């Protein structure tokens, strides 16, 4: 079976590079005068605030986790076990314990961000509004084990938390 080949007609005389060069330079000069669209990352960064305009990161963005804390700085988690239960990637490790006031709290709470698929179910299922996925995307580390976030690290995160998708307001208006 023959392969269909289309032979293009190429000009074989009166070919000059001058015209093409001028054409290219014209585009270059025109673009120099137009407003710039490239973001100068990392000097310039996206932010969740709407004033960033086109560079705004969505408030529904689901990034690395953050544990919220109460007024005393303790994590709001009560170790109910719903997030490890619902997690489709099985990336949350939770060992419940009891503090000096008889309150249930997590002895160990670890999220393996490498395993996480950032579905946001943990935030959705949390009855205490403790664990959240964050509006945050810079997660680079120098070693793999640094990607297992323990409770201290999750509580120390300061980035804003995701609003997730609201079924009653699907377009976020």
């Amino acid at each position, binding site marked *: 079976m023959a392969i269909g080949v289309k032979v293009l007609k190429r000009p074989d005389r009166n070919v000059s590079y001058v015209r093409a060069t001028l054409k290219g330079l014209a585009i270059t000069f025109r673009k120099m005068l137009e407003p710039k669209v490239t973001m100068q990352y990392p000097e310039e960064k996206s932010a969740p605030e709407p004033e960033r305009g086109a560079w705004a990161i969505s408030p529904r963005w689901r990034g690395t986790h953050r544990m919220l804390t109460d007024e005393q700085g303790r994590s709001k988690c009560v*170790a*109910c076990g719903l997030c490890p*239960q619902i997690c489709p990637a099985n990336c949350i490790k939770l060992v419940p314990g009891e503090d000096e006031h008889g309150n249930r709290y997590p002895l160990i709470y670890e999220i393996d961000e490498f395993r996480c698929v950032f579905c946001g179910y943990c935030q959705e299922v949390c009855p205490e509004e403790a664990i959240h996925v964050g509006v945050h995307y810079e997660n680079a580390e120098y070693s793999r084990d640094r990607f297992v976030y323990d409770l201290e690290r999750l509580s120390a995160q300061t980035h804003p938390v995701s609003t997730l998708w609201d079924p009653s307001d699907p377009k976020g208006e």
Partner: protein
Amino acid sequence: MSSDLVSVTIDGVVVQVPKGTPIIEAAKQAGVLVPHYCYHPSLPSPAVCRMCLVEVEKAPKLMPACVTTVADGQVVHTDSEQARKARTGVLEFLLINHPLDCPICDQAGECELQNYVFQEGREGTRYGDYAKRYNPVEDFGPDVLYVANRCILCTRCVRFMDDVAGTPVLNVSERGDRAYIGIDQDQLLDHPWAGNVVDLCPVGSLVSKDFLHKARAWDLDKTASICTGCSQGCNIMIDTRDNTVVRLRPRPNMEVNRHFMCDHGRMNYRWMNRGDRIEAPLVRSGDRHVATDWDQALDLVRGLVGQAGPAVILASGGASLESLGMLKGMLAGRPLTAAVQVPLADAEAPLAGVPNLALRKERAANGEGARLLGYSMEWDPAVKVAGKAALVVLLDVALTDAEAAVVAGAGAVVVLGTIESQALAAARVVLPVTNTAEEQGTFVNRDGRVQRYEQARSAPGMGRPAWWIAAEVQGAAAATPAEAFAQVAAAVTGLAGMTYADLGVTGRMLRGASAAGSRV
């Protein structure tokens, strides 16, 4: 007989039940579970929770199904508009003061309040700003905490202590919405069967300190088993999480333990999770043991078993019927002394309200089964004989230093063990065996009831059931516990004709033992 039966119609299903049956039990036969809190089949019914109200035709108002007995021709509607409205109302009242702390409550996932509210409770509350009453958590006794806020005052715990345990230390204190379960002054909930109040509690009000915060109900794998604490043979559920036994709970068996088990049995599970297990077959080489594979170890045992001379089996009283039977079969043809080790306690701890139910003196699960197979209970003489025997087989026994020294005098010692022990030092071959939680098998309780237990967790390393080892050594074809049981049963008159399938989940009496020790 037929004159004692009455015919009732429950939700359109006609059932025949004996006279005097409460509607709630008749409904179970019709396949309808009437929601209830205070009713429990093993406790007297006070009809205080008002949850089981059902519509009975020709009755002026709704009737509590737990105390209303059936009458011939009665027509009951459990799911009529009126009955449903009554239940929704009761649930709304219960939730007025119930804290919504399901995320931290141990009962969540197996809570009857949670279940019924989810089924037919109101969607929202009508008590928006109402401050719920608050009482602090009380420590009731060795293993029981009382979380007063969650209590729905069904009084099952009070009735258990009054009528079943016969030690009335619990009461309902105060009145109205201030009511709570009180404990008599200077008293503790330390009855040997007190742990049952935790199971009886339909909500998370009475919680076990041992199980507190350990696991969520939905994480648990449940396996039907038999308690190994004594010779009573209570039916239990082993709850495991990630291959670790975290809790034992009673499993209803009307013939043995009804719905109860004692605290000794309840706490007797930590040994199942022990980490210092023998994980591979060990063979003596010079003055130390070297790990090997099953083929080599079994060949060695085959050689030892094949020799002549007196043999002795020293087994644990907690070994299964299959293991004890196959082990004896393995050494058939040699002069054999077989004994089991059964620890004895000083006293029984009976549960007053249930006849023939107690924590027995004999603290091993299968003493009766061993007797049935011809094992002797005379432990010390058997150990003496072992010192002079040509071959000693030890099955999961803990020997004292003195006993181990005597046994070391034997020609050859083969140990079938779970954990490292004194007896290991003298052993020619050490074979790893499974413990009760890691194998299937049968026990015979003191009344002669043969009962099965199932495997709850996987065995560590290369551990195998002892019956499998014995079958391999003698070349007998027994690949499953059912086949092993069939082989053992064939040789015992009391077990004749019994199969694994016959035993079911509640067990069967030995032939000829049915009337003697058991109750109806």
